[in-house]
């Protein structure tokens, strides 16, 4: 069903944006190569299920682990390197990872890889299964993030984002927290990659390039960095634009680019970030609600 497929696409973007937000929103470390981890998760699962015959659940977990390990390495790099350098390094990692997928016969090379449809407890997966799985994870992650936000870990990340030296001086182990943030963020991206691979039943290196990373970053920023609802809204808006604006297909990219510019110019904290015009208007309209 068309709507289910659109909902799945958006769900995948929501997972990717929420995970990116941990590193770029909460911890303030720019990662413009997030799609690489999405890809690592996807290819890991493809290899494990089609070449080695692991079952889906184990694959799912391992995809996250492997992506998380690579992410941890990135975290360790991020400690040595200044912020602007980090941003470009993440782009570099994106390119190199995609290049490896494209040039290695082991990963299917330029032909990509076919990914089998999983059967768990006797049920063969269909689009509704993927939809439920994705939104289940979204809920789990939201709960997880809410816990973090109000915890010592969340405060620490916020401190690091605002002023690393100050954070260090009050006893926060900046290095450790950065690495943890990267690991969690990429672990989630890896799991998302696994689900994506089985859903699409065919993956190729083109799916995980720099363009995808930029899209994920844009979603996170447009919705509002550092919040939970921000990336969700951002993913939703930018994910639905290609569908809604099919009738002006020729101008879609123009609209997309223009939207990014206008948003950043007039609502740099994101549509639903703090100080957002829209959020304030809506809250006033519907009366004061409790904090999300």
């Amino acid at each position, binding site marked *: 069903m068309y709507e289910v497929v659109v909902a799945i696409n958006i769900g995948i973007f929501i997972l990717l944006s929420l995970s990116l937000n941990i590193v*770029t929103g909460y911890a*303030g470390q*720019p990662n413009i190569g997030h799609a690489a981890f999405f890809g690592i998760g996807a290819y890991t699962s493809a290899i494990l299920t089609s070449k080695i015959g692991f079952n889906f659940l184990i694959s799912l977990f391992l995809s996250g682990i492997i992506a998380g390990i690579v992410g941890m390495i990135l975290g360790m*790099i991020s400690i*040595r*390197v*200044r*912020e*602007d*350098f980090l*941003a*470009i*390094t993440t*782009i*570099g*990692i994106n*390119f*190199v990872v*995609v*290049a*490896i997928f*494209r*040039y290695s016969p082991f990963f299917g090379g330029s032909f990509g890889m076919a990914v089998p449809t999983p059967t768990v407890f006797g049920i063969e997966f269909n689009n509704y299964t993927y939809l439920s799985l994705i939104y289940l994870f979204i809920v789990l992650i939201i709960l997880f993030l809410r816990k973090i936000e109000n915890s010592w870990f969340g405060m620490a990340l916020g401190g690091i984002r605002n002023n690393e030296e100050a954070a260090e001086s009050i006893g926060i182990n900046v290095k450790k927290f950065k690495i943890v943030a990267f690991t969690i963020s990429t672990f989630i991206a890896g799991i998302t990659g696994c689900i994506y691979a089985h859903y699409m039943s065919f993956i190729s290196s083109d799916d995980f390039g*720099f363009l995808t990373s*930029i899209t994920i*970053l*844009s979603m996170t*920023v*447009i919705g509002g*960095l550092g919040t939970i609802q921000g990336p969700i809204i951002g993913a939703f808006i930018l994910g639905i634009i290609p569908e809604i604006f099919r009738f002006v297909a*020729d*101008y879609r*990219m*123009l609209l*997309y*680019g*223009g*939207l*990014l*510019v206008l*948003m*950043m*110019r007039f609502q*740099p904290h994101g549509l639903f970030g703090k100080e957002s015009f829209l959020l304030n208007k809506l809250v006033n309209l519907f009366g004061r609600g409790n904090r999300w």
Partner: protein
Amino acid sequence: MFLQQFVNGLVVGSIYALTAAGASMVYGILRILDIANAGAYAIGAYTGWLIYGLTGSILISFIGAMVITGIFGFIIQKSLYLPQMKQSAIVPLITSIGLFIFIEDSLRLIFGAHIKDFAVEVPIGNIVLVNANISGIWILILLVTAFLFLILWWIIVKTKIGLAWRATAQDMEIAQAMGVNTKQLVALNFFLGYGFAAIAGIMVGIYYNSIFPNMGDVPAYKMLAIIVLGGLGNPFGTVIAALFIGLIETFVGGYIGFFLPRDAIAFLTLILIILLKPQGLFAKNN
């Protein structure tokens, strides 16, 4: 073969240097990564192509494109980047990405998606040095790049404006306190930077006899790698970094073959150097 590869590497590096100059200058002053600079590159190429079609003079095309694109740069910084100065660096980055997408698609809608040829009679002939074939356009690129960077060097090192630029690049607030008109400086910076990108775009268009809306794609991300390697904000470090990357790509391709795509090799080099020298090839110096 070595000489051939070496000269080619220099040519490729020179193009990278010209394209990265603008982004480097923008970073030097505003500390933002400006991907829209690659959009200026494409705009410059199309503008130069149009002007050449009308006047038949490559010199007028260079100057005309540089001015028009420079004005575009001025407008961008005034309406978009200056007001965003107080925001975190990610905001102008996303803005520049949106702007870049907008520019590329506008070019596609206006001029069509197909490659247009940009045939120009290059006034310099091809020469053969030892056993290396060096085409006229290569020589032109090397000369123009050297010339423009010489002018830039002279401006930055020998003039009062250059002094103000270096002061602002070091610390904008202090420079302002000392009486530097930073707003004007930023404007000039963008005008020049975008103008350089325009010239790079035209030369690439002529060299490959191709102009197309997506021509800014590779420069968009590669220039970021080069300015980081060059020490972020140091235009001359950028030149060295650009030549370095151009040479590496060429020698790898020429002696080993592209075991990874060219761009991945450039980034791999970047990553390795960053790991060894986290401040880049040259730390920021004035």
